């Protein structure tokens, strides 16, 4: 899987290792202990422990229905009325990107980006964030006038303009075609490099997880089944042996036994 990305490559500058990033005395950005959630007596999350360091990029894998969205929504504080227990420390500024762009259809793009953004120069910052996401000149468009990828870029601009300490993303590129998806991954990496939030990204794609993350967490049977650091030096080339090894390992954690060499394109 190495389509021409139009000059965009997904290899990034060598990331500072997460351990070096956490200055002494600095607690993690996210600290989850014994998080349990259930629906109607059925336990979906069963005592999850999870730490995310500041600036660390964690990808969350798991089979469909394994509770990835449930975990993300719990961390985002969106699960009012869902039964459960456990403790959670999250930073004050948390942004969330959803699978759908979730732009308010009755607000123009810029107004969507700066929605309840505090500060006197909110519109200026919103404009800059849109430019960063490659949407300059589209500030006054209605959301329905943007393509799917453009809408998702606007949603990304909306989350990052808030300078979050934690960015939560639930399959943000799930609805996009393969090429747009690669461009969006590159954009996400660039923006995350620039703003350095901690990231918890839910994805269905093992390759996406390996390409983007510092660490991959696999959710299985309501608990953390595997917690694998991604230390691939150099470009994260999906054809490289180290990449392939990691892919095989993660796929077997996910219960895919006859792991293919290359992930079938969606």
């Amino acid at each position: 899987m190495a389509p021409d990305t139009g000059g965009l490559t997904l290899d990034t500058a060598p990331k500072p290792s997460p351990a070096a990033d956490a200055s002494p005395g600095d607690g993690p950005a996210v600290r989850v202990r014994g998080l349990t959630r259930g629906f109607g007596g059925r336990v979906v999350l069963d005592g999850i422990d999870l730490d995310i360091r500041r600036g660390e990029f964690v990808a969350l894998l798991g089979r469909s229905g394994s509770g990835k969205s449930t975990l993300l929504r719990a961390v985002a504080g969106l699960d009012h009325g869902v039964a459960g227990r456990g403790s959670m420390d999250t930073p004050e500024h948390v942004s969330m990107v959803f699978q759908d762009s979730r732009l308010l259809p009755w607000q123009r793009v810029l107004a969507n980006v700066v929605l309840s953004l505090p500060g006197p120069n909110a519109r200026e910052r919103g404009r800059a964030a849109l430019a960063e996401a490659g949407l300059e000149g589209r500030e006054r468009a209605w959301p329905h006038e943007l393509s799917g990828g453009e809408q998702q870029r606007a949603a990304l601009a909306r989350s990052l303009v808030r300078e979050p300490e934690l960015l939560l993303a639930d399959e943000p590129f799930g609805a996009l075609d393969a090429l747009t998806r690669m461009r969006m991954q590159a954009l996400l990496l660039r923006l995350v490099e620039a703003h350095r939030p901690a990231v918890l990204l839910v994805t269905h794609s093992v390759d996406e997880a390996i390409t983007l993350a510092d660490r991959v967490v696999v959710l299985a049977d309501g608990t953390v089944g595997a917690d694998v650091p991604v230390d691939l030096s150099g470009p994260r080339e999906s054809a490289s042996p180290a990449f392939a090894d990691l892919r095989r390992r993660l796929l077997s954690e996910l219960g895919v036994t006859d792991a293919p060499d290359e992930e079938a394109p969606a």
Partner: protein
Amino acid sequence: MSAPAAGTAGPDVLPPRSARGRRLGPGPRVPGLLALGPLLLLAVWFLGSATGFIDERTLSAPWTVVATAGDLVADGTLPDHLAASAQRALLGLVSGIAVGLALALVSGLSRLGEGVVDGPMHVNRAVPNLALLPLLILWFGIGEEMKVITIALAVVVPIYVHTHNGLRAIDRRYVELAETLGTSRTAFLARVVLPGALPGFLLGLRFAVTAAWLSLVVVEQVNATSGLGYMMTLAGTYGQTDVIVVGLVVYAVLGLLMDGLVRLVQRRALAWRRTLED
């Protein structure tokens, strides 16, 4: 991202064209086409009177009506009655809209509010408004107050029902989004709730305008000494068909104008929507 900024060219660069493939929607708007129905009705009336098919005693001819209208305007009768009616309708409409909107917000945004407000609103809806008239006359007398309140009561119902409905139909995902963005209650109201409920409110407004006119006619035929309804009732006692028809035409024109106005507001305010309407 090196995506070209599409759509920067002016709209005059590309000529309009029609696409292949069957169109299932009604197509773009044709200016003036909405006047077609009313004009057809007018034509039937005109032809019927000119051929003698419509008896002058049943329905006055258009030209008689125009002449009568001229007389009524000249001697100040019509403007006076019209002003009295318009004032009542407007007062009732404005206060009814305010109350209906406030109740819809209270009941739409809080469960307690819904428990308190929703039941009585449906009782009000179930009881024909005009059946309340005798009671309202007992309570408020036969003056302006009773008339405005009757109109307002008729306006509250559609405003409440449609705004409440529109508000509850707001996608939960947007509420969630507002929560993740740390939106304050006022910003939530201004940016999510009100715009989201606007389509419902505007639909309610169209019904409300009609309801206001309807109630107006009735209250003005009860113990009024001014207004279009009074003018028509009086004409009825003297057998002045032409005056009655003048009143009807004025009602019709005003009703159409107000509906057109609401539709215009609707189209402006809902520019973000992509529906069959456009």
